[in-house]
């Protein structure tokens, strides 16, 4: 035994860096949606290729063994035995402690790692839960998350300059490498000069945006591989940013690809939040 799940929260899964080398079989990469925050959760504990919980809000756990946790990403009002704890640092945990992600303060997704990682199954080499592929499931009340008991892990904290601010207006930098010639200059101007809003149809597969419609010259394209961050624009003209659980191939027109690090920041914005696009030139 280790962590007992007292409340499952909105949507909590185990994630790591995702699956590699299996896209040709139709498997998505999966993995932490905000790899930047995920990496810090591992680095703070000097974990190597372990895993973390990707937490939205509401998760409540009881520890049955001592460990040290790292908490990064969104500030979801983590309370340990009722006392608020800031993210982007480690906390020592003892048996009987109650951890509760009580409310959303900033950001959408927090990463909770334990020293040495959770001892959960790997599927095709990765710990990442991918429900649609039958790899694991979201946490449920009564689940247990095993880990090895540890004490004496030195405390660590991320320096302020490395902690992102999720409240600013996010500019998604776009590499126009893919199929941008399918869009006229007029359509591109609309795309780069308007703000878009994140809709409720936003999850680990992709973020559907809403705003000024952008239309491609042609719609029937030969299906091809889809990169992380690809901006797909279906018939209705509304962009979708494709993320970790995207389909591996698809035939919708693509404006370009959002830089990976901007996708990590996007994963910390929720429905109703505004974003804008900006061009990016590869040096």
């Amino acid at each position, binding site marked *: 035994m280790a962590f007992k799940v007292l409340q499952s929260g909105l949507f909590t899964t185990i994630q790591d860096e995702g699956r590699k080398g299996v896209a040709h079989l*139709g498997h998505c990469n999966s993995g932490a949606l905000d790899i930047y925050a995920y990496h810090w959760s591992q680095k703070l504990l000097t974990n190597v290729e372990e895993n973390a919980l990707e937490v939205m809000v509401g998760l409540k756990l009881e520890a049955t063994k001592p460990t040290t946790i790292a908490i990064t990403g969104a500030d979801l009002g983590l309370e340990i035995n009722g006392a608020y704890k800031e993210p982007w640092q480690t906390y020592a945990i003892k048996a009987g402690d109650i951890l509760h992600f009580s409310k959303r303060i900033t950001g959408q997704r927090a990463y909770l790692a334990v020293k040495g990682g959770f001892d959960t199954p790997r599927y095709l080499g990765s710990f990442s839960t991918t429900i649609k592929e039958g790899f694991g499931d979201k946490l449920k009340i009564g689940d247990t998350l095993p880990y090895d008991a540890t004490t004496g892990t030195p405390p660590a904290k991320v320096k302020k300059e490395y902690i992102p601010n999720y409240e600013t207006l996010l500019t998604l930098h776009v590499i126009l490498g893919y199929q941008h010639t399918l869009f006229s200059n007029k359509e591109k101007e609309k795309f780069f000069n308007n703000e878009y809003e994140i809709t409720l149809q936003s999850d680990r597969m992709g973020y559907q945006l809403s705003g000024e419609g952008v239309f491609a010259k042609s719609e029937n394209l030969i299906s091809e591989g889809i990169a992380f961050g690809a901006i797909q624009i279906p018939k209705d003209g509304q962009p979708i940013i494709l993320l970790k659980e995207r389909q591996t191939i698809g035939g919708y027109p693509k404006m370009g690809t959002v830089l990976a690090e901007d996708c990590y920041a996007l994963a910390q914005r929720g429905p109703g939040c505004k974003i804008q696009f900006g061009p990016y030139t590869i040096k």
Partner: protein
Amino acid sequence: MEFKQVTLNASMLYFEDSISEEVLNRVQHAFHTMRSMEGITDITPSYTSLLIEYDSSLLSHETLENLIKKSLQETHSNVTTQQKHIKIPTDYSKGEDLGSVAKYHDLSIEEVIHLHSSTTYRVYAIGFMVGFAYLGTLSSKLFTPRRSTPRAKVPKGAVAIADHQTAVYPQQSAGGWNIIGHTDFDNFASFSIGDSVEFVRI
């Protein structure tokens, strides 16, 4: 051949902009040649192109382009050695849409079954869901549009056709393809780009 960078760690290799068996052979060859290259983390082949993802600390778009050009020239012969032939035992007796497909083409059910099971197909792409192989090319007498209303549940093992392609559903899912048969075949992970596939009537 065109090699386009799509993001900092991924590039697209395009061969042609139309689908043919000759282009598929080149995609298949490129896939097998590049699979073992150091620094490449994932390759997604599909019809006329390959998405190549790589570790950008080991490879750049430019070095990869040179490597690919060189290696595709060097090993232009031994493609067929990589190709599997997969047989799919198929029960055509309960194909839900067999009747409507026959009617659409003004063929008998027997003729539809014969046309479907006497063609050898190739895997042109894998996607939509894990293990879903797009198999081409149907006899032109069987080109059939998708159902106007997709089914909420197409069962696992359904053998179906849409447009110029056929496929087996690797798991239950929603789908708009026309179901003409069923199979117990379950080795969906064995499909690889370019493999040849045959439906054997049982």
